[in-house]
């Protein structure tokens, strides 16, 4: 199918790239299907683009690039809902907020988006951990990743 996207304009997307979010995303409960876009020039930001609403795309980042010691403790009920049986099938992405003053950009480390890439199921979950925050400052780390050695994932 042809998909209209904020970041890349119109692109061709095959059905097996569409990730289903059974409950939508917090704030966007009516949107159930997304594709993950990885424009090279935007590294290390990826975008979770809604299939149903072309104007909705969330900037996301690999949390392990942000904090190599990130240790999310996910409720079993969420893992079951995503039919996760093998850690190899999972990717985590955390939503960024980039205000006009980008030095104030933040990342939500409390609520990673978990995707079962084999079954194409996704959900944004609230972790059991209490050491993370919804708006952790990101700018210095972001610039470090952008200029640093970490490879695109």
């Amino acid at each position, binding site marked *: 199918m042809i998909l209209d996207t904020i970041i890349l304009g119109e692109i061709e997307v095959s059905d097996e790239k569409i990730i289903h979010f059974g409950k939508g995303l917090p704030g966007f409960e009516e949107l159930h299907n997304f594709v993950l876009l990885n424009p090279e020039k935007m590294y290390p*930001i990826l975008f979770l683009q809604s299939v149903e609403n072309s104007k909705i795309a969330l900037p996301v980042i690999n949390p392990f690039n942000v904090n190599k010691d990130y240790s999310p403790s996910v409720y079993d009920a969420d893992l079951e809902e995503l039919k996760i049986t093998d850690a190899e099938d999972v990717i985590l992405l955390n939503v960024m907020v980039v205000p006009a003053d980008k030095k104030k950009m933040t990342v*939500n480390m409390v609520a990673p988006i978990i995707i079962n890439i084999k079954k194409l199921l996704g959900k944004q979950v609230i972790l059991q951990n209490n050491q993370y925050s919804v708006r952790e400052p990101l700018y210095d780390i972001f610039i470090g990743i952008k200029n640093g050695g970490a490879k695109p994932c």
Partner: protein
Amino acid sequence: MLVLSRKVNETIIIGDDIKITLLDCNSDKASLGFEAPKSVKIIRGELLVDTIKANIDAVACNFDDLK
């Protein structure tokens, strides 16, 4: 909404296997203890509210600044 008054150390039972105990209480803060099966998610309400706000802010970003 069901409203129940509890004294310290009194409990509320929800369903067959969830118990909530009022552990401590002062004028503007109460400590609650939860006993529930691991499958039950217990989350501070404001984390969901804040995540909704952050997601809405996230889609309003101007991405051109980030290239």
